[in-house]
């Protein structure tokens, strides 16, 4: 009996390890392949000789070099930084203030306000009405003197009811005794929020800020729709446009460089994910936490 038990366990362990390692490698493979292709020579890439490792005989870094000397690339990079920074700040400001008010039991019409948020998770107007609405807002923005489409993207997009509910749940978990003590000591509403609630729900705030920041960094669709000026395109739009040029064959006409057109695309892909990969090890624990506090509410 004892022996049989060990065998079934051993078999399952071997299967688990093998499949997990294979899956983890699959998750990593496209990125490794992209790096290898970005630094291999033209011939190796064109003839599909790259499988995993770069072709060491024809290593080149001109694909990266040319991209770094491309002004449009740096432009789009700084636009993305702008959208990520201001977008996250704006989203966090509105979300923290709103979630704090919603977490208070003494708030009148609390149920209605909650429903007002949650309903947007059930029913969305769809992309065409949203688009028409954004066009209407952008003309209002222009009328009051904000002609820069970037600010429209910052203010109007990227708000998520789910994140506010995450924050609200965290604020509700703060013991009310501490708040009462602060009020007895003469703290104002704002001080209660900044000195008691925010420090006591630091990890949820970090999680939500990261969720906002990642979605801003990765945002493509609405930035593509609403930003007219090519100089204001964020990185994702720039990358997509390059891929489209590549598909149309515009890219490859009169190509004479030491690297293949593919390498240029791969180099761009690598550069657009590097910032996320750099901060990823530090932030991944917050994400694992964030998913568990989730929206599930007893």
């Amino acid at each position, binding site marked *: 009996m004892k022996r049989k038990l060990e065998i079934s366990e051993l078999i399952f362990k071997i299967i688990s390890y093998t499949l997990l390692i294979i899956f983890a490698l699959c*998750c990593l493979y496209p990125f490794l*392949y*992209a790096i290898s292709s970005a630094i291999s020579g033209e011939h190796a890439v064109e003839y599909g000789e790259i499988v995993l490792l770069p072709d060491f005989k024809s290593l080149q870094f001109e694909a990266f070099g040319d991209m770094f000397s491309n002004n449009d690339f740096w432009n789009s990079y700084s636009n993305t930084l702008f959208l990520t920074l201001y977008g996250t700040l704006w989203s966090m400001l509105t979300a923290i*203030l*709103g979630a704090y008010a919603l977490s208070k039991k003494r708030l009148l019409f609390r149920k209605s306000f909650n429903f007002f948020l949650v309903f947007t998770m059930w029913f969305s107007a*769809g*992309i065409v009405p949203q688009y028409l609405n*954004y066009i209407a807002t952008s003309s209002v923005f222009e009328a009051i003197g904000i002609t820069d489409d970037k600010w429209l993207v910052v203010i109007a997009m990227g708000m998520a009811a789910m994140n506010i509910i995450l924050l609200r749940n965290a604020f509700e978990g703060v013991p009310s005794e501490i708040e009462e003590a602060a009020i007895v000591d003469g703290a104002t509403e704002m001080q209660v929020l900044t000195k008691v609630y925010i420090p006591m729900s630091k990890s949820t705030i970090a999680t939500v800020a990261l969720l906002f920041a990642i979605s801003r960094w990765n945002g493509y669709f609405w930035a593509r729709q609403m930003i007219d000026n090519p100089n204001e395109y964020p990185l994702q739009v720039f*990358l997509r446009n390059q891929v489209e040029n590549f598909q149309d064959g515009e890219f490859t006409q009169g190509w004479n460089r030491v690297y293949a057109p593919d390498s240029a695309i791969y180099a761009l892909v690598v550069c657009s994910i590097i910032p996320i990969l750099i901060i990823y090890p530090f932030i991944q624990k917050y994400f694992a936490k964030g998913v568990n506090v989730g929206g599930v509410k007893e």
Partner: protein
Amino acid sequence: MMKAKAADFILYDQATGTYRIDPEQAVRDDVEKHHWLHVGRTVLKDWRLYLMLVPMLLVFLLWRYLPMYELLGCFKVGDPARVVPVNDQAFAGFSNFKLLLTGGNDMRMSYEFWQAMRNTFLLSFYGLCFGFPMPIILALFFNEVRSNAARSVLQVLTYIPKFMSTVVMTSLIIMLVKEGSTTGTGNELGGVISQLMVKLGMISRDTASTGLLREPAFFRTIYQVSGIWESAGYDSIVFFSAIIAISPTSYEAAQIDGANKWAQMRYVVLPSILSTVVIMLITRIGHLLMVGYEKVLLLYDVDNTLTTADVVSTFAYRNGGMGGGGESNPGLASAAEMMNNVVGMLLVIGANTIARKATNTSLY
């Protein structure tokens, strides 16, 4: 206003053994009795709290609820030549819906709409069949890795794709299954995944050199496989934390009773994570009609793969005057989205009701 039960506002004070009325309930009762005047006074007294709500409510009102007003364009006929605010359009009753559902004088439109409806449903249904079990299986496997360091490394690696943007992901897919070179210089099988599949005998050389994304038959597979690649690792977190919450004594008891690995799975692990699985499954069913349009839009090929790839959102995108080119009919596009989203909302509400009844847990 909701009537409160007596137990809600009578508090029992243990120290003195007396009952007293909850002060907050007193405020609520007061407000209810004198209504708007008192509501106004309570709000004024506490104006800081209500001021904090304003930015959030404004954002939601302007950019989540106003579009719903714009959605009423589905009952109107717009000017195909330019974008017109919904107020200035001519009222058209249900003609847009009729056109989409039954065809009328434009059978092609109706055909495309039903095709998009079917694709929307099928893409999420296959996602449910293939994408849903994967994170659970992964979580069971992660549970087998005893070394914490090794497990963390494996987990962190499998989460990475989740944080890549849709553009990066679709660009990689496009490159990995791109068409072969036709000029004779270069590889005629195309991207590295196509090459691998030809070697394994899964696709013919011709298919590979046309490019997998140009073949309607492959779109759903590409969509599902990349979906699993993207989110299976991240989605396994919630199941994994349900599994590690199982007390080790349960396993020991099962082992003493002579349960082998499969019996332990069947009688210890599965019952313990069942409620999590049920909740996630119900949520998934509720979101059956909410397909991410961004990924479809970036992957599909308007000339070749509409038959399997077009979903309602992308149908609306093409016919609603977005993305430039072609004639635009926002009313028709809105009508398509209206139908999709109303059915979608009913699914979510139904799923939430079932979840509340079945597990006593509300999702929102």
